[in-house]
């Protein structure tokens, strides 16, 4: 039910966004035609499904999803780590940020040995930098902090 309602709200937002698009075409379908058709179709589906779920007494699924704790335990920490990875890379550079992120994620996945976590994170960070930056030639930020230290030295 949670997903169905979220889908409905998303499509209503898309529908409103599509309806505000100014069009210049004077013949045929405009640039907003298909987004409007699809948003309306998905919104109707979600609304009908939400009503059916509500009437069939399966609305308690909301609580099942909320109380199993997975969102809080796993999805949020992993998503937040990915989101925070960006400022960490900009601040500390790719290698150091990756080492820190690896340590967090290994812990989230249930690896308990802290020495192992630290050692493997450092090794993988260095290997990843060698493979992606040195071998494949990808540009990865060196990090504001590292650059500042370099300048000071």
């Amino acid at each position, binding site marked *: 039910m949670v997903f169905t309602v979220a889908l409905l709200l998303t499509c209503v937002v898309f529908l409103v*966004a599509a309806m505000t698009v100014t069009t210049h075409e004077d013949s045929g379908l405009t640039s907003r035609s298909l987004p409007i058709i699809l948003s309306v179709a998905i919104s109707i589906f979600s609304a009908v499904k939400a009503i059916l779920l509500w009437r069939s007494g399966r609305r308690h699924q909301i609580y099942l999803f909320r109380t199993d704790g997975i969102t809080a335990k796993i999805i949020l920490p992993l998503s937040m780590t990915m989101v925070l990875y960006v400022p960490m890379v900009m601040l500390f550079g790719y290698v150091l940020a990756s080492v820190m992120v690896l340590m967090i994620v290994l812990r989230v996945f249930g690896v308990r040995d802290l020495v192992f976590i630290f050692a493997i994170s450092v090794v993988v960070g260095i290997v990843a930098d060698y493979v992606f930056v040195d071998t494949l030639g*990808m540009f990865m930020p060196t990090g504001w902090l590292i650059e500042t230290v370099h300048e000071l030295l």
Partner: protein
Amino acid sequence: MDIIGGFLTLLDEPSIFAFIVVAVLIGVIVGALPGISAATVIALLVPITLYMDPLAALAFLYVLGKAGRFGGSIAAILFNTPGTVASSATMIEGYRLTKQGRSKSALRMSAFASVCGDLTGDLLLIFGAVAIASYTEGLGPPEFFAIYFMAFIVIGSVVGQSVSKGLVSAALGVLCSLIGTDPISGTARLTFDSLQLSRGLGLIPVLVGIFVLSELFTQAWKATRSGEPADVRDSSASESVQDVITADEWRYCAPVIFRSSVIGAVIGMLPGLGSAVACFAAYGEEKRRAKRPQLWGHGAIEGVAAPEAANNAVSGPSMIPLLALGIPGSTIAALLMGVFLIHGIQVGPTIFTTSRELVFALFASGIIGIICYGLVGYYLVPFFGNYVARFRTKYIYPFIFVTAFIAAYSSAMNFFDVYVMTVFGIVGFLMSRFSYSTSAFVIAFVIGRGAEETLRQSVLLSDSGLFIFLERPVAIIFLLIGLTVLLWRGRYHMKKQDRKATVRDSIGTGSRPGSEE
């Protein structure tokens, strides 16, 4: 003759052979690891192929997909855990053979059947794609829109468990593909005044989010619900049994492999059906025709040969809709379409004129890849498969997490893509969790813009608006196929619901289904 040209092209670039061997090894290993699919690894490696030659990139990922399909049988046979969905049927007889101490025979038969099936599929691809493309080359926008429409309906209604959820997933995929600047009028739409969104959602961040990050979330979720996956290794396997495939078994398996390869190849041509359907269809058919029915369900080696031949035979033909029509028929084909587009190669019927040499070299590399994984599977896997499939994947996921960041960022050197990937990781996880089809979403996302362009071009071409589709016989045929599939699937789904309701009622009243007669 073109395929010989393809092999000659490969000889000019010997480095591709190294890529093929690496792809085989990676494919077999990731296929054998439950919880990591070939599609996940391909999605992760797509951005890395930006730095490779187009042929090497395509050959690498194409072969990886093939080897991954075979690799799935290793965990299925040894641990009763399918490495991929496609190897679920292999598990039934394969694991029973392992319990009888015949794991090596099962693995060898699996490798042999996979090679035969895959080669049959590739032959169909080589001849079928060219023939269909030569016909579809002359089609106009209305016919192409009808084909896109049919693909959405077929993929949406066939891929998932629920027809309505599959269609909504496909519609959502198209809707997301429309975000950004409209290619025809240049108007920004669904961008919420964001400059980053005006260039549209990047293909790679969406693919990595849906296939890689959401898979990580799912695996983490499963781990917290069920704890560490149990080591299902069977210690009771008798070492005293002679673990070789007898001449009689080869004789029984030969026709099984042939028929199953044909079943798999035909199913592979149809968009959306895929390996999982093929392997069960072949298993069911061969069980029905079995010459030794008493062995089925107790460790029949034909029961390993049939699903393995069928699920690998899907690989080649699933590329036919992609190459001949520009419509990916499977998730791996959708990922490969991304690679074609990244390297500026337009997929569709014209590919056989614009990039003929590359396409046939890709086919040739597929055949070499099949032989390579056949050799690895026949000679190495029976000895090392046990160690590979037992590796704990919780140590691999963190590294996939870090690589996913690089994959999303490196596609356009833009941190915004990392956020897009994270959002689609959550979306993909929720879709899987609530039985919406991520495959239908991704395929629709990849072809959504093309479909819109052909629709609007068709309407612009016509004086009768949307009725143009009813004036073109080819378009009518494809629209009718789409609607027929929709009706058939809808009816099947309703019957299934009725059967479930009957069973529920009969349990409630204490009578058996149908006993009221």
